[in-house]
C-alpha cells in the first residue's frame, strides 16, 4: 500500500479519506463506476482503492477507446493496409492491439506501411508529403478526440487533399452509460464522470443520469484528491437522497463544454444507427461516421470493407471485465496467457485498460504476487 504522505497535500488526502469513511454507511455496499479509462489508470497507479473502506467498490467503465473496439473493426482497418498503395496511420495505443491476423505492429513487420502518428493532423501531413500514396487514418476515441479528427478533415477538404481518408471508430460516451444502466446484471450507485470528454460535451448531457435514472454523477479530475473528493460528493448526494450532476473539474471543464469543438464534430460527423462495442454488444446511436459531404475522405466509402465480425477468444473474458461484472484478476487468462507484453485482449494493451492498469498496480504492490496469479 502506498503511504498517504507520498501524495501532494497529504493532510487533505487523509481528511478526505476520513470523510469518505464517515459518510459511507457500513450497512451498504457502494458500487461507483469511473467511466473514463484515465481515471482507472490514476486509481490503480495511486492505489486509491487502498484509501477506501471495503464497502466502496470502484467499477471500471467503458471509457477506454482501444478497449471497446471490437476485433472486427481492427481487421477491417488492417484489410485496407494490405493495399500496397496505402499508408495505415494510427495512434501508438492501437499498435499492439491484436486483430485476427496480428496487430498493426505485426502487419508492419510483415512489410505493410504502418505508421504511428500522435495527431490526426500528422496523418494529414503524411498525405501531403506522400502524394503518390493514400494515407488512411484509423481514428479512435470518444468526444475528446473526435473534434481533432473533424478539424483535420475540414482542413483536408479546404485544401482539397485527395489522398487522405479516415476510418472512423469514434464513439460517444452517453449511449454507453445508458447501455450499462439498462444492463440487468449491473448495479451502479453513482458515477465518477469523465474529465476530458466533458471539456468538449460539458455537463448538460449527463442530466438524465441524475433526473431519469436517479444516479448521482460527479465530473472529476485525475488527481488523487479530485477522485476522492468526487467520491465524497457522490456519498453526500446518496446520503441526502439527491441525484444531481456536479462539476468537480471546474478548472478545466466548462458547464457548457467547448462550442467550437462541438461545431467541428457536427460539421463532419453524423450518428451511426448502431455500432458494436466489445463487451457491450450493439448500442444504437453510439458512434460517429463521416457525413456524405465528406464521402471523398471516408475510408469506409473509398475502400471495400469486408465488415468482419469476430467473437473474442472464448477463454478471454474481456466483455465481463469491461462491463464490471468481473474484476481483471478474475479472468482466467489474467497474468498468465494475457500480460502487457503479450496481450490477448485490448484491456491489457492500453494503460487505460483496467487489466493493464491492475497488472502494473499488482506488480508495484507485490512483485511476487503477479508470478503467482
Amino acid at each position, binding site marked *: 500500500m502506498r503511504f498517504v504522505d507520498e501524495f501532494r497535500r497529504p493532510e487533505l488526502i487523509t481528511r478526505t479519506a476520513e470523510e469518505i469513511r464517515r459518510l459511507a454507511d457500513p450497512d451498504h455496499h457502494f458500487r461507483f463506476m469511473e467511466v473514463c479509462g484515465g481515471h482507472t489508470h490514476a486509481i490503480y497507479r495511486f492505489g486509491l482503492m487502498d484509501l477506501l473502506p471495503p464497502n466502496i467498490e470502484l467499477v471500471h467503465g467503458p471509457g477506454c477507446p482501444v478497449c471497446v473496439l471490437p476485433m472486427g473493426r481492427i481487421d477491417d482497418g488492417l484489410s485496407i493496409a494490405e493495399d500496397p498503395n496505402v499508408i495505415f496511420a494510427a495512434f501508438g495505443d492501437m499498435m499492439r492491439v491484436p486483430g485476427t491476423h496480428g496487430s498493426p505492429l505485426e502487419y508492419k513487420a510483415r512489410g505493410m506501411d504502418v505508421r504511428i502518428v*500522435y495527431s490526426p493532423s500528422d496523418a494529414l*501531413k503524411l498525405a501531403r508529403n506522400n502524394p503518390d500514396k493514400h494515407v488512411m487514418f484509423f481514428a479512435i476515441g470518444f468526444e*475528446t*478526440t473526435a473534434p481533432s479528427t473533424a478539424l483535420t478533415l475540414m482542413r483536408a477538404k479546404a485544401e482539397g487533399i485527395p489522398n487522405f481518408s479516415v476510418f472512423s471508430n469514434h464513439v460517444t460516451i452517453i449511449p454507453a452509460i445508458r447501455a450499462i444502466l439498462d444492463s440487468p446484471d449491473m448495479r451502479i450507485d453513482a458515477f465518477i464522470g469523465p474529465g476530458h470528454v466533458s471539456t468538449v460535451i460539458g455537463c448538460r448531457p449527463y442530466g438524465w443520469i441524475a433526473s431519469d435514472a436517479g444516479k448521482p454523477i460527479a465530473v472529476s479530475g485525475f488527481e488523487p484528491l479530485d477522485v476522492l473528493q468526487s467520491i465524497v460528493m457522490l456519498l453526500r448526494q446518496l446520503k441526502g437522497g439527491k441525484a444531481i450532476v456536479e462539476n468537480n473539474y471546474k478548472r478545466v471543464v466548462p458547464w457548457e463544454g467547448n462550442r467550437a469543438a462541438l461545431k467541428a464534430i457536427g460539421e463532419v460527423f453524423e450518428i451511426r444507427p448502431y455500432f458494436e462495442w466489445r463487451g457491450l454488444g450493439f448500442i444504437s446511436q453510439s458512434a460517429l461516421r463521416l457525413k456524405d459531404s465528406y464521402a471523398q475522405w471516408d475510408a469506409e466509402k473509398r475502400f471495400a470493407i469486408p465488415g468482419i465480425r469476430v467473437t473474442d477468444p472464448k477463454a478471454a473474458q474481456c466483455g465481463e471485465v469491461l462491463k464490471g461484472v468481473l474484476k481483471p484478476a478474475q479472468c482466467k487468462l489474467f497474468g498468465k496467457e494475457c500480460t502487457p507484453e503479450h496481450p490477448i485482449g485490448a484491456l491489457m494493451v492500453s494503460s487505460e485498460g483496467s487489466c493493464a492498469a491492475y497488472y502494473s498496480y499488482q506488480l508495484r504492490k507485490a512483485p511476487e504476487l503477479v508470478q503467482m496469479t
Partner: protein
Amino acid sequence: MCLAIPGKIVELLDEHRDIAVIDVLGVRRRIDLGLLSDDPPILGDWVLIHVGFAMSKISEVDALDQLRMLTELGEQQSALEEVQGLSGP
C-alpha cells in the same frame, strides 16, 4: 490517451492564426488552436493538449499541477514522446 498534456504558448504564427508553438518541459512543437476559436489563447497562456490540438485554456498553477501529476502517474516520458513525435500542422 485521455490524460491531456499542459503546454505554454511561446509563439503565435502571423501567417496562420490557428497554429501556435508550445513548450512542454523544454520541448517545443507546433500545435493546432482551431478548437479554441471561440476564445483564442494569447502568448504566454497555458493550454491542455490532446492529440496535437489545444483542448482548453488552464491557469499556470493548474498546468504545473497537471505536469506534476503526469510525472506521478509515470506518464511524463510518454507525454514527452508524444510532444516530440508531433510533426505539427
